[in-house]
């Protein structure tokens, strides 16, 4: 064995020991600089042997509680989403306010002669002239909203997001690049039906967005389906940006007068 090889191997032992020290501290180890498959097996074995350490086996109760709370929140958001399938009259979920807001937003869009992709600003402009209360897409400016890690949103998945100003969907297009319509990989759109503003619900079986109020449906790209009648426009889109593996959507910021809630609405 040459001296050079000897020196390299000594370095391997030292690096391995640094790795083990990190593991014993229960901390994320640094990545080894280089590694052969044989050495990788020793690192894998180190992880396995660590799991036999008496204190290592079980998840920490604090961690278990934290993760459970996080999952609960996700599940709740998901239940709200499915509750949109309920008939509006039976559930009482659709407030007069949200219907009004949606109606206004739809009217605003029609007035502006909006087309798919470019309607957000027009919505804001027109809506602001008419009301200061909580209208979807109304706002004084725009903000980038972090949706999450791009890798966590699987192709074909539709994710709902909410801010104080907007309920929207982010769709990870699984038909790129072979879709005929030339749709981008990420599509963010308003979840308010362009008829009356009811929040549409995603159905992963037929891959359509369903409006609970008048049975209108939209494709995964937000276009009204053929059967939905000619009265529907496409769902307004929002800009999407993917940076450093994270997905951002440009959403309207809340109006400064957002605290003005319709008092008669509350009394009902």
């Amino acid at each position: 064995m040459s001296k050079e090889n000897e020196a390299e191997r000594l370095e391997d032992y030292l690096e391995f020991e640094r790795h083990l020290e990190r593991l014993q501290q229960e901390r994320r180890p640094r990545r080894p600089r280089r590694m052969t498959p044989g050495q990788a097996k020793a690192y894998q074995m180190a992880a396995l042997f660590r799991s036999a350490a008496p204190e290592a086996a079980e998840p920490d109760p604090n961690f278990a509680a934290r993760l459970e709370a996080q999952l609960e929140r996700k599940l709740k958001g998901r239940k709200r989403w499915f509750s949109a399938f309920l008939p509006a009259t039976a559930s009482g979920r659709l407030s007069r306010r949200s219907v009004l807001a949606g109606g206004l937003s739809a009217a605003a869009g029609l007035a502006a002669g909006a087309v798919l992709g470019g309607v957000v600003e027009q919505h804001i402009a027109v809506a602001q002239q008419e009301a200061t209360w909580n209208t979807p897409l109304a706002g004084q400016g725009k903000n980038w909203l972090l949706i999450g890690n791009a890798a966590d949103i699987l192709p074909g998945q539709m994710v709902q997001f909410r801010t104080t100003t907007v309920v929207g969907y982010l769709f990870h297009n699984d038909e790129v690049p072979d879709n005929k319509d030339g749709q981008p990989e990420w599509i963010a759109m308003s979840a308010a039906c362009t008829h009356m503003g009811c929040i549409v619900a995603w159905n992963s079986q037929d891959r359509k967005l369903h409006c609970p109020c008048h049975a209108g449906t939209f494709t995964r790209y937000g276009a009204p389906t053929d059967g939905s009648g000619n009265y529907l426009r496409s769902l307004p889109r929002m800009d999407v940006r993917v940076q450093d593996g994270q997905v951002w959507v440009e959403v309207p910021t809340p109006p400064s007068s957002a605290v003005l809630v319709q008092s008669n609405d509350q009394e009902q």
Partner: protein
Amino acid sequence: MRRRNVKQSENTSEERGTGAGGTKNKSVPASSTVDAQSFRALYEENLGIVYRFIYSKVGNREEAEDLTSQVFLKAVRGLDRERGGQSIQSWLYQVARTTIADYWRAFYKIRATSLEGMLEQGWEEPAEERVELASYRPEERVRRLLDLLPPHYREVLICRFLLNLSIKETAERMELSEANVKVLQFRALKKAAEVEQA
């Protein structure tokens, strides 16, 4: 504010499936609701299993917690997706395995783009990845491997891993130099990997 409270209470009654909200659930697609409700039970049943599996692959709590969270969050997000007839549980384990496979690839900076390329370079999929998670007992595997190793390898691994001794303490106990312990533990683990494959 009052409106908000009303909405929250509606949600709560619906989740419990009681009271006036109980009948409404009939309108909700049954499979989705069942999935969401049983997810909580799934979590309680499988947190330990998934965590132990992941811990045995990463060997430290920080990463084990991070990756365990990732697995369950992915599972929630994917509840509505077609799972090709798999049960939620076996699908959860599938997510856990995939997450670990991605972890190894990233950790070892494996650049080969295909499985064939990886195999050519000597990388192999660890055999236990195919084992059913629910019956996966890493600590038993460790004990079995220890029994098969030569005494000095066994002792160094017991000192470093099962007793959590430092290099210095191990050296004193085994009457070796610290440098020797570092060499010995590395070779012992390589040997353990060989024994396992045999």
